[in-house]
């Protein structure tokens, strides 16, 4: 007995079309893609039934093609086109290996899943995202839908029927999926693994896919972009360093206090000087802090910097703070303090003149609130806010990979969650 599996051929007993045979002895039916006849592989290819006017779908892989999947060489022996009630269609190729038997390669919108029948029967809940264990993994229920067969061609290990309906429940644990297929006659379980489309194309000698699939498959694993992974790994340390530096500068970068004065309302209205103070360095970074306890009021301060009694710089700065509402409607705007940085090129003896243009705090009714104004001027200050901005940018970059993963997962579930919303 010659037990080797070789490609053979028969003529369709219905229409005479030549049909290649690639399967083994467990093939039960041969469907003619030309006339729709289903032939009994165990009874000299007698016609069992015929499905007329069935349109052959486009197929990326042809019957008879061979390719290695999971290290095993398979031959494509048959194909089903299956679809759901919403018009979504996909292909299920029956593939055969003399050593590993009959399995399936599913093709859907550019995605491939290799699946095989398993005898494990897990307890699968009805609720979406409910967990169940199978194959030593935890799957989440993804979707349940009714599927019907629309087209059959080639060899199958059972007698194919166009119109055959099953109820499919999919569980996912990317890149794996676990399916329960229920029909009137039986219940079967399939364990699938998502395969990279480029690998499948290469395995079956097809030209590489021209573009990535538009959709995200239920079992498609998230593949992180290398640059995003690098950013996440290195960015987090830079972000931490920038944050520490920013906090350190914020806490200890105020420099040396040269003058610290309180002006009472009368002095502010009339105009007053600080005491003389010395600036020792050249090109010193100065930090000027103004604080005024405004409350639903504002004040404007004109400041003039004198060096040796000669004005060298002028600055106007307003302080306003308003608030209102209560509870969730509470609001506020403005602040009771302002900070200004400026560079002072020459050392020397300085003083500051202050005059409140808006008095010492004017409210909406034009009344004066009459509050003190505090002025502090520090030399050799370091600006910390740029490091805070840098820290925020670095934190964002470090989290980019995580956000991309989150978006990917959201898109994975989008289609089926929308289905539920529609219901």
């Amino acid at each position, binding site marked *: 007995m*010659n037990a080797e599996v070789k490609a053979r051929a028969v003529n369709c007993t219905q229409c005479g079309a030549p049909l290649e045979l690639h399967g083994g002895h*467990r093939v039960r039916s041969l469907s003619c893609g030309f006339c729709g006849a289903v032939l009994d592989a165990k009874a000299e290819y007698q016609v069992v039934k015929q499905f007329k006017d069935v349109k052959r779908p486009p197929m990326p892989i042809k019957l008879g093609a061979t390719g290695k999947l999971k290290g095993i060489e398979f031959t494509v022996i048959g194909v089903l086109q299956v679809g759901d009630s919403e018009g979504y269609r996909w292909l299920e190729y029956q593939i055969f290996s003399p050593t590993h038997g009959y399995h399936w390669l599913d093709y859907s919108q550019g995605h491939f899943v290799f699946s095989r029948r398993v*005898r494990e029967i897990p307890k699968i809940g009805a609720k979406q995202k409910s967990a169940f264990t199978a194959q030593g993994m935890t799957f989440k229920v993804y979707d349940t839908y009714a599927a019907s067969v629309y087209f059959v061609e080639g060899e199958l290990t059972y007698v194919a029927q166009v119109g055959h309906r099953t109820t499919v429940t999919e569980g996912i644990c990317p890149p794996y999926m676990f399916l329960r297929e229920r029909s009137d006659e039986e219940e079967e379980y399939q364990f699938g693994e998502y395969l990279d489309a480029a690998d499948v194309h290469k395995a079956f000698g097809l030209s590489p896919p021209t573009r990535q699939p538009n959709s995200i498959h239920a079992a498609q694993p998230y593949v992180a972009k290398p640059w995003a992974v690098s950013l996440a790994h290195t960015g987090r340390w830079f972000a931490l360093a920038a944050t520490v530096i920013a906090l350190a500068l914020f806490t200890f970068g105020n420099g040396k206090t040269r003058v610290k004065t309180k002006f009472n309302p009368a002095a502010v209205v009339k105009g007053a000087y600080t005491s003389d103070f010395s600036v020792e360095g050249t090109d010193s970074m100065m930090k000027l802090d103004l604080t005024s306890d405004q409350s639903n009021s504002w004040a404007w301060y004109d400041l003039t910097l004198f060096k040796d009694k000669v004005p060298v710089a002028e600055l106007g700065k307003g302080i306003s703070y308003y608030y209102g509402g209560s509870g969730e409607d509470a609001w506020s705007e403005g602040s009771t303090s302002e900070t200004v940085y400026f560079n002072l090129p020459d050392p020397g003896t300085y003083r500051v003149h202050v005059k409140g243009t808006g008095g010492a705090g004017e409210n909406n009714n034009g009344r004066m609130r009459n509050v003190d104004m505090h002025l502090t001027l520090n030399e050799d200050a370091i600006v910390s806010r740029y490091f805070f901005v840098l820290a925020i940018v670095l934190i964002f970059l470090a989290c980019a990979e995580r956000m991309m993963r989150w978006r990917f997962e959201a898109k994975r579930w989008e289609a089926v969650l929308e289905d539920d919303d529609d219901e």
Partner: protein
Amino acid sequence: MSAAAPTQQNCPSCGAAAPVLLRHSKLAVCEFCNSTLFIEDAQVASAGEKSVLTEIPSILVRGRKFITGNWTFEPVGRIRYEYGASEGYWDEWWVQLSTGKMKWISNDEGEYVIQNEFKLKDDPPAFDAFTLGRKVKLFDQMLTVTELNEATCIGLEGQLPEVVAVGDQHRYAHLEGPKGAMFTAEYDDEGCSFYKGAWVDPFEIKPA
């Protein structure tokens, strides 16, 4: 079951060294002249028949060790059966576990099933009592008769625990039930044997 105790003999037909016999072997095929050798009281005798198996692709290879799950095993012999009117064939591999225990593993085009003999408390049902596609209550569960057929031995190799000859025939019934339950009932002149099957994922059989 006790561990195997190998003994060395010569083939009565060609004089070549017979395979190192396992304790439970009742039959061996000479590696050199393919003669079938009976084994009685640790002695080999020629059965006067030759058996040559056509090589077909298989994960299992005699003389090599494999792992599946917690098992490490080595195929030591096999019987090939043809079923129906040349409808197909399958191999029954006799394998030795690392514990010394012996098991049967059937392989039908990539479907691997470990066969464990199942002792019946009562008289076995008659073969004719089965109807293809019908359900039957056995072992407290409803089983569906998925295959009724006749098998003919078409070849042997290695060592086997029973005397089988090319051309020997038996009838069998496959019964499948819920949760992957699978039983095989074999009927020959000597009676009926039941086996409880355990499916093995071919992708989980790895070389040791």
